[in-house]
């Protein structure tokens, strides 16, 4: 599998998460339903083949291992991402993060306030420093994908 193939499979999944599942998460009446949805999200993303999980793609600061791949379409100035994680809840949360930024231009990405967005989705607690789930590290990694001016 190539990065192009992975990207091609990941993009529709992220779009679907953004258009359908986000609403389900916000509407979840209890924690059980919220987590049931969260765990389904990760399953929608194609798994990254073991061979492609190179050490430099690892997002540090996670209790579970997570990998982030980034592709910058320079012609259109659009950023695309692929992700995988050993842990399902973290993968679901990271998928939410990615669906929000996927396809953004460099300027949009630089401006984007993930914290604020997570707050709106009632997911802010997951971004706190004290949690070893790596969400904060992932957010920093995404931001770092902006090309330096």
């Amino acid at each position, binding site marked *: 599998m190539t990065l192009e193939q992975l990207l091609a499979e990941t993009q529709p999944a992220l779009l679907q998460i953004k258009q359908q599942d986000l609403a389900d998460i916000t509407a979840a009446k209890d924690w059980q339903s919220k*987590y049931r949805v969260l765990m389904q999200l990760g399953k929608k993303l194609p798994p990254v083949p073991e061979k492609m999980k190179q050490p430099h793609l690892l997002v540090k600061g996670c209790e579970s291992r997570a990998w982030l791949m980034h592709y910058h379409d320079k012609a259109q100035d659009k950023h695309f991402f692929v992700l995988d994680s050993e842990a399902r809840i973290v993968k679901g949360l990271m998928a939410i993060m990615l669906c929000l930024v996927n396809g953004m231009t460099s300027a949009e990405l630089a401006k984007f306030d993930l914290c604020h967005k997570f707050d709106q989705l009632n997911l802010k607690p997951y971004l706190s420093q004290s949690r070893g789930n790596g969400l904060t590290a992932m957010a920093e990694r995404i931001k770092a994908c902006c090309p330096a001016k």
Partner: protein
Amino acid sequence: MPGFDVQQFRQQFAFFQQQPNWVYLDNAATMHKPHAVLDAVTAFYQQHNSNVHRGAHQLSQQATVLFEQARSNIAGYLNAAHPHEVIFTSGATAALNQIAFGLMHTLLKPGDRILLTQLEHHANIVPWQLHCQRFGVIIDVVPLTADHGIDLVAYKKLLALGPKAVSFSHISNVLGHIQPVAQMVALAKAAGAVTVIDGAQGIVYQQPDMQQLDCDFYVFSGHKLYGPTGIGVLYGKTLWLDRLTPIFAGGEMIDTVSFVNTTFNKLPFRLEAGTPNIAGAIGLSAAISWLQKYNTNQVQQHKSLLLKEFYNGLAAIKAIDILSMPVHNAGIVALNVRGEHPSDVAELLNQQQVAVRSGQHCAMPLFSYLAQQGAVRCSFAAYNTLDDVNRCLLALEQAVEILTA
């Protein structure tokens, strides 16, 4: 003697009144503090606060008396031969660093060997590694048996290589298994090795008798024994403490200083540079005095009962893999939900206000040996109840149900 009354015991912890909805099963990470400890720390700051060993005034003398009484009390608890055999450190980690660093300059020479075990906490691996690499000392590692105990046959073989020092934990912080420390110390001594015991978990399980156990060093942290954070004990036999090069230098630990030379103070001050954690020492001493009001056997029986109920309950939940053995277990159970990442399980327990730890618990070499990516660790203390056990089991069932849906 009346039996152990867990409700009476638990009532002494303000934490459980403040947080009545939480089931706290992360005791191997840190324990809660009874009023006796909180009161002792507050009383010191309110009534006696002064620096020790150095003031010209009476207040300082009083603080010194309290601080040294704490040392004597702890030394008495450990049955140390002398109070100066108790060195105050910031915790088990600091104590192990002091020992590894201190022996490197005096006992250990390039080409020498030391012996550790496969299940050590990073605090009992990395300090050794750091100094061994620099000094050219070789580290050997005792493997485990099929039931994750220390392989004593292999241990004896490795002792035959003539290690100068052996360092191992009293109780594994991941598996909860109680190691045969008395036997291991005796074997090491027969082989002529200096013996170091990481008692960070062991100290909660039983009152260790230093003269009987006859180890050269035993270390632990106050916060895992109902005491404050930031205080710990490095116990050592006088002979060996005298041979440690101080890792920290500064005030209080010196005799004379000039820019040409410095001569060191005597024990225990030689190894306690700077202002010590006075309130911490007093708090830890209070924890020990308080704990002695309870019968250790009864406390252990209560914890065994919790453990038995927990194992029984686990057997009824599908897809649970247990890494810890129920026998010779001090109250720690490492487990996994088959095929699931431990952090997912722990997060689902967290949602149900059951506090556990997940991951590799600062014991990566153990997990690579077990070929597991980590584990969920439920660790029980004397203040836990059967209700806690049941709530944890229900929460696990719920987690399994959500994960396998």
